[in-house]
């Protein structure tokens, strides 16, 4: 608790008067100072607040289990990861799945395939939907992370988490979306139902790819913070907020195809606001996670 004295004593009140993120960085630093990182606390923090970008990668890696909670073993483990990556990379080169000209994303995909034992016999094998998702996420991640090794690991871990941890939850999301839309804007829901667009919304883009390719990376990061920290419901609210934000346009559109098309290519200008609103909405509907910092 000695750390508390260093913290701004006003921090308690900032939130009350509406300021956000003032003390978050500091508290995150405090969290990260612990030798054995407390993953649960990090999760709560990440759910509550947007992560500062300078610590985002680190936190993600810790949360996704890429590096262990001990600082000391970080270098070693990362070294292992690196070696592993390069081993696999080398092997893929040997078996000529990749070459120098292969795009990074494909490299990631192949490595992932190899590691998960799904490597096709031949390069000519068509890509499966799984792989499409992976590619989209990897593309987004590539924008966010510079180091290809870290990027690969993050992508892999992210996808693995989605597939393992949130597999069941993801299938429920469309229903939840409808439910909340009913609460928030009944009229819009009616319109969508009237257009029969409810079932044709871009659920794959939203819920499987986690908006990768839909939102710009800067906004996407904040969404993924929540997903990585364990909550995939945020996806519903982002989707809901998108619908609400573009309500007028959606109502103007009458066919499901047009709506879907529009939603798949939404304007990128004010996505930050959308995400912020979505986070708020999520907080109001699902409650703020317990402050265990």
């Amino acid at each position, binding site marked *: 608790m000695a750390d508390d004295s260093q913290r701004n004593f006003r921090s308690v009140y900032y939130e009350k008067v509406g300021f956000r993120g003032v003390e978050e960085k500091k508290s995150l630093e405090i969290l990260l100072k612990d030798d054995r990182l407390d993953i649960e606390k990090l999760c709560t923090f990440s759910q509550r607040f947007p992560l500062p970008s300078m610590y985002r990668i680190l936190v993600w890696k810790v949360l996704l289990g890429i*590096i*262990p909670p001990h600082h000391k073993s970080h270098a*070693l483990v990362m070294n292992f990861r690196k070696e*592993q990556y390069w*081993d696999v990379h080398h*092997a893929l080169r*040997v*078996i000529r799945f990749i070459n120098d000209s292969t795009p990074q994303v494909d490299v990631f995909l192949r490595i992932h395939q190899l590691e998960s034992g799904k490597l096709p016999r031949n390069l000519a094998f068509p890509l499966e939907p799984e792989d499409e998702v992976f590619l989209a996420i990897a593309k987004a991640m590539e924008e966010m992370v510079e180091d290809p090794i870290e990027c690969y690991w993050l992508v892999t871990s992210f996808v693995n988490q989605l597939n393992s941890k949130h597999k069941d939850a993801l299938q429920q999301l469309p229903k939840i979306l409808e439910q909340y839309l009913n609460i928030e804007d009944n009229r819009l829901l009616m319109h969508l139902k009237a257009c029969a667009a409810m079932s044709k919304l871009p659920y794959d883009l939203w819920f499987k790819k986690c908006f990768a390719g839909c939102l710009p990376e800067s906004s996407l990061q904040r969404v993924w913070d929540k997903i990585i920290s364990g909550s995939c419901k945020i996806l519903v609210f982002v989707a809901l907020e998108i619908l609400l934000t573009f309500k007028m346009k959606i109502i103007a559109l009458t066919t499901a195809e047009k709506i879907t098309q529009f939603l798949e290519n939404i304007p990128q200008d004010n996505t930050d606001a959308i995400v912020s609103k979505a986070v708020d909405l999520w907080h109001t509907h699902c409650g703020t996670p317990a402050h265990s910092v």
Partner: protein
Amino acid sequence: MAQQGNVGELLSMLDSPSLGVLEDITAAFKDNLICDRGPMLVNNLVDYYLETNSQQALHILSTLQEPHDKHLLDKINEYMGKAATRLPILSLLGHVIRRQPSWKHKLSQAPLLLSLLKCLKTDTDVVVLTTGVLVLITMLPMIPQSGKQYLHDFFGIFGRLSAWCLQNPGHVAEIYLVHLHASVYALFHRLYGMYPCNFVSFLRSHYSMKENLETFEEVVKPMMEHVRIHPELVTGSKDHELDPRRWKRLETHDVVIECAKISLDPAEASYEDGYYSASRKPCTNLKHHQTDPSASHYIDTQSSYGTSTPYSTPRLTLSQMPGQLPQILSPQSIQLSTEPQQVTIWSPSAVCGMTTPPTSPGIVPSESSQSSSQPYSKAFGTSAGGKGTPLGTPATSPPPSTSDDFVHVSLPSAAATPPKKEDKSDSGRPLLYRQQNVTNSDKSLDTPGSKSSVTLSDLPEFLGGLSFEDSAEKDREEDAISKEISEITTDAEHMVPRGGFDSPFYRTNESLSGSQKKTQSAVSGVQGHGQTSEPLTSSLDKPGPESARETPKQTFTPIDKPCGGSGESPAGNREGTSGETSILTPSPCKVPAQRRVVFGGGQPPLYEHLFEVALPKTAYLFVGKKTEELLKKVKGTQDEDCMASTSPVEVLDRLIQQGADAHTKELNKLSLPSKSADWTHFGGSPPSDEIHTLRNQLLLLHNQLLYERFKRQQHALRNRRLLRKVIKATALEEHNAAMKDQLKLQEKEIQALKLSLQKEQARYHQFQEEHENIVAQLHSQIRQLQHDREEFYNQSQELQTKLEDCRNMIADLRLELKKANNKVCHTELLLSQVSQKLSNSESVQQQMEFLNRQLLVLGEVNELYLEQLQHKHTDTTKVEMLHAAYRKDLEKAKLCVQQQSQRLEASQKRIAELESQLSKKDHLFVEQKKYLEDVKIKARGQLQAVESRYKAQKRITQAFELEILDLFGRLEKSSLLKKLEDEKTEAAEAAEERLDCGNEGCADAVAGYSEETIGRNGETKPPSTRGSSSSKAGSNSELSTPEKNQNQRFINRWETSMLLEPSTTVPLTVGSLPSSQSFLGMKSRELFRNKSESQCDEQGGTINSLSDTLKTELCKDPNMETKAPPSPNNSLSPKIPESSVGQLHIMDYNETHHDHS
């Protein structure tokens, strides 16, 4: 037209002498009047009346009913405008008004009134004016409130006429002016009585002017002397007296009386004088009268006699000079003597009937005319009136004559002026007679008699002083008077009948004596003389009249005689009622008059009776008037000289009387029977204007008379009203008396009841006392009994307490008994114990004895031993040495103990140190454990990474293998193809190549190939590999497929080199396990297991199996351990490379642990 003709006929028949026709005609007229509402009949009647002066017409007109009044008034108004008809129409109006028709209130609105006023203002004819004024005066009380708008007209008329009286602008005869003056005087009274404030203010304003001053001095001021101050002047105001409300309460006669009340003039106020006098002495009598019945009688008599001066005078004298008792008494007696005939019914109405004419209007005129004309006719016509009548008249005198008396009496009473003293004496004279009457009956009244004598004696003096008679006659009179007085005093009875010679007087005398009682009583009630006078008068009552009747003839002569000589004096006195006449008349006249008295004493009554019966009243009047006129004519205006100070009415009266005297004188010259015929003749042939004057005078007198009559009617009305009140009062009185009687009876009853009540109360008291006694006795008994009871109660209580004491004692005794019993038991027990003890002690004694013996024996033995000891005393050194040795031993032991304790302390310290060390170690151990945990987790993280890396490597190798196999496959295909094509030479080379790598299992190659094909086709390869990895621990040995074997072989090759040494170390490591099996080993294993179980999902399989195996190994006996290793070794031979890693780690752990510990 026919009707008109009819009317004309009727009119002509109106004055028919036949009575029956007359009645018929009258009835016919009345019918016509009822049927016909037109003015024609009335007009005709008026015309007719004016033409003929018909009495019937007048009667009809004066009784006209409502709808015709307008026509009548219009007609009168019309004629009023014409100077010629003014006078008769005025007289008609006077007649009509005096009738007081029901429509009289309309008069005020009628134009007639205006024209009348105008006439009065403008006319210059004295007769008309006088008549008009009288009419107006008559009318005024009828329309009091509506007259106010003409108030100034009235006042103006008054002013004009008063001035007229003085200035006489028309230069009419003085005689008219007398009449006019009288009427103005009446008007003055009326106006002053009705509107005092206004009138006074009018007088003030009117006579403040210089030109009027003379009129005021001459005319108005004397008038004012005859009125007293009006109360309204004090309390009222101009507006108030004009207020209709004030007048609404008053009827006509009330107004008249009101006006009369304020008059001091007995002539004018004659009617009301009774009231007047009564009102003047309210302090003494009036109040009395109203309450006291007798007093009320008195009032009545008073009122009835109000007209008679004597009665009022005593009042005055009484109030003014109480000393003059005779005068007081005498009027009473006069009253008594003048008491009306109906005395028996002493009621005022009766009295009124006597003094005033009967109430019915029909009779009134006749009566009045009779009474009025009676004396004159007696006096003048028959020359008998000389003495007798005058004596009688004052008593019974009708208004005119009484008014004469009144004048005389009232004047002296009012003021003590010398000329009026004479009047007083006049009054005194009649008093004398009356008193004589009284004294006749009342002999005890000496003092009054003497006093009256005084007055009588004064009389001549007065007479002498005042009268213009010659002194000689006076002397004679004096003598006569003194004589008379002496006669009266000596024998009064003789005096009474003196008046009796005159029949009317006689009559009145009778009534007098009859009525005496009442009046006397009334008077006595008032004046205090009743005590003496009343009984006497009452006693006189019956004999009075008889004696009076008897005496006349006896007394006639004696009186006659004095009369002859000095009888003149009473006559003069009586006549002196008309004081002035006697004064004025020449002395010679008197003597014959006296004679005439004697002479005519018998005759006049007869004539009178005849006159009354035979002639209609108009005739009376006519005759009276004529004579008066004659007299006036003769006497001229002499009267006027002395009128100044007297009231105009008086002057008029004197004028008439003078006329009468003159007339009688003249008549005396004629024979009586021819008198009526000759009277005109007596005047010879008077000039025509003289006749006219006379006529007018007659008319005026008639008017005056009618006016007076009207007043009298009003008075009669009032009398009747008062009578009713009296009756009511008496009824109430009787009722009161009855009530009083009842009250008395009830009081008696109450008293009786009170008595009985007292008795009852006494009885009640007795009973109560008895009862109280009994109660007291009973109480005492009760007290005694209670006392006894209390005693008994106390006794019983004492006994009870005793009983309780006894009970307590018994209880105590019982307790004691119990205690004693206990004691007994106890003692018994003790006894038994004691006995036991005794026995014991006995046995002990025995023992004692035995022991004593023993003691003795032992003592002996002791002595023996002592002896022995003394023998052995040399052995002490040994003992000392032993003692020292023991001490040393003890010291040694103590040192030893010290050493031991020190060691103990040291060891304890050591133990503490060790314990602290132990705790430190524990702490350290915990830290170490934490660290270990940390490290373990770290290691696990690293291990995971390594694991993944390993997996990756495996995948890589798999991929490589696949690739290699693929390549091999291709190669073999191509080689096979080549083989088929190449020759044997080439085959030999290939065989050599094959030997290099295919000696282990070229046979397997075919199987592996087949396997690959399957894998490519069905993709079953990954599961199989996965499955193999997961179930590696258990199934690797069994799954020794050719392909696997190949792999394994490949690995084994790499591993065998490594495992050759480890295989030798395996037992060592296994063997080391038991060493770590103690405490730490167990713990580490548990921790390991937990961690591995919770965290490692993927590794879980392998690690679990590993730990399981370890567990199973641990659970086995240590003995078994030696055997166990080979078996796992056997089975785990392919598995060793994997598990060795874990084993190594564990070993490390154990080693580190060991190092630490």
